[in-house]
């Protein structure tokens, strides 16, 4: 927060201070993009959703009561915007987004294809609510509490979906074909 309390930043934004809003954007930009990406799974569409989210935030800040943390409120806004976006475009389910994955890491391409196919296939077989919860937790990196806030459900529900989702995926994936994910994880850091 660069030392400035969140409430001060919000107050300045409410007063129409665009410089303050830019600070807010700097603070939450990566997170909101990640949330958007978790839903639409396309960088260009995620950018579109992120922009729409911040414009809505600018307009909606006067009604922000501070019941939730600013980041949580923005995440919820992003989730709703992403859902609207998907609905508007009559997008197919999250899996469809996954299938149009555009990775640009330096990892070996063949490994990526194998992993993608296996995971996509497995993800296609778990319920959409679980897929979205997994995407927000592991894709956007939200905490369990933040996922619950963003999806409007209880933390217990999120924990259940996560454990169920991981368990289902584990069962669906062929154990002896799992690649060395520790190498993958290191590559992301």
């Amino acid at each position, binding site marked *: 927060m660069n030392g400035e309390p969140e409430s001060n930043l919000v107050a300045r934004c409410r007063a129409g201070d665009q410089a303050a809003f830019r600070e807010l954007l700097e603070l939450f930009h990566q997170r909101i993009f990640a949330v958007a990406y978790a839903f639409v799974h396309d*960088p260009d569409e995620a950018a579109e959703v992120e*922009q729409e989210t911040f414009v809505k935030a600018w307009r909606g800040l006067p009604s922000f009561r501070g019941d939730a943390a600013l980041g949580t409120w923005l995440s919820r806004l992003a989730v709703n915007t992403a859902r609207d976006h998907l609905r508007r475009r009559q997008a197919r389910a999250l899996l469809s987004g*996954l299938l149009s994955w555009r990775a640009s890491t330096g990892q070996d391409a063949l490994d990526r294809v194998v992993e993608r196919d296996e995971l996509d296939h497995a993800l296609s077989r778990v319920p959409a609510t679980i897929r979205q919860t997994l995407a927000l937790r592991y894709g956007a990196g939200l905490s369990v509490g933040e996922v619950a806030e963003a999806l409007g459900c209880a933390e217990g529900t999120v924990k259940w979906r996560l454990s169920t989702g991981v368990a289902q995926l584990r069962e669906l994936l062929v154990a002896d074909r799992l690649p060395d994910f520790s190498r993958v994880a290191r590559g992301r850091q």
Partner: protein
Amino acid sequence: MHNHADSVEALLRHRLQPARIPRSAVVWLAIQPRLCAPRRGTPVLRVAVVVALVLALSVSLALASPNVRDWLGGWLGGVAVSMGGPGGRVDSLYPAPPFTVMQPPAAPDGWTLLANGYNPGPDANGLPSASLAGGAVARRVDGQDVPPPRSVVEQAQARAQDLLAGSEAVFALVYADSDGHLTAIRERTATGRSFPAGETTRVGDRQAVVSQQGLILIVDRTYIEISGSASPEIWMLSGRRLEPTTLAPFDTPPSGQAAQTAPTPPAWTRLALSARLGARILPVASAAQIAQQCGWDPSLSSRAPGEAMLQVRCAARLAGGIVDEQGGSSVSQLSWLEAARQMGIDPGGVIGADTRVYLVQLDVSAQGGTVVVIDSQTAQPYLVAALTPAPTE
């Protein structure tokens, strides 16, 4: 087992996290222009703007006759916009704006008018008036609607809403090119305004300033701002093409209500719908067929007005048995009672007076056209009728 769970989580992180994130400066550049407009004021006005968007005019860029005017304002309580000039230009506004409306004679080559709007400012009691916004959302090519990408239409309409916000009279136009670049033109009174700080230039024989707000011109009584994601060269081109518009007067009663209480018909009522309603015909399609072929979604109008207009036009074409549109078209959403009143027919008792309907005019020209009334929730076609030829001037 636990290791497998960890592996699954690692795989999920790898697969679901974005590989690259755009720079925040890029995001800021994209959204900053949309923050410039003052926040929309009262809920009343916001609702009005949304309602107005639902009313979006879908006007062919090749309206067959400049005499064809479609009047839509009455139910909004006295705000009216008539589009019917060459190239789909606005040719009448009510209440009249306190500035000269400047419009290009036609959209530049490769550009499409996606949204327009008019906020006449507060009414006599100082309350915000309804704004009206619409857009030519599709072109007809080989008998098919060719809409711009939905995201572009939505951006244009959001931009129009932003431009219309506020408490003073505003006229706005938003164009897009085939790459989705927008050019927005906002016109307000020049009274009390002067050029902002910026780089002085000339647009044709007019003085102008390129400022943070875009290209600024002051022409006669009008303060014009041209901005958007298109290049400044396009702003200059747009500025050069602006011409003063001679608006046809709405002949209105002293009450200020353009139609609801009009004791005497406006001067152009010889072209009004009630005067042109001809023989009724049976709808060619049922609600179920419409839903099947047009994908009827009644909530679309509140979420994606431009898309909703395409849906409504599809339904109307189907119900009216229209294979290929040639003339102009318009869509308005209103109560059945008001629709019946505009058509000059007895509303009867079968359809509820407050039932929301779409009143669609298709293929409109001085020679004829078709009127279709469709239930806005169920897509049930209530009425299909021909338009008789308009009387000559």
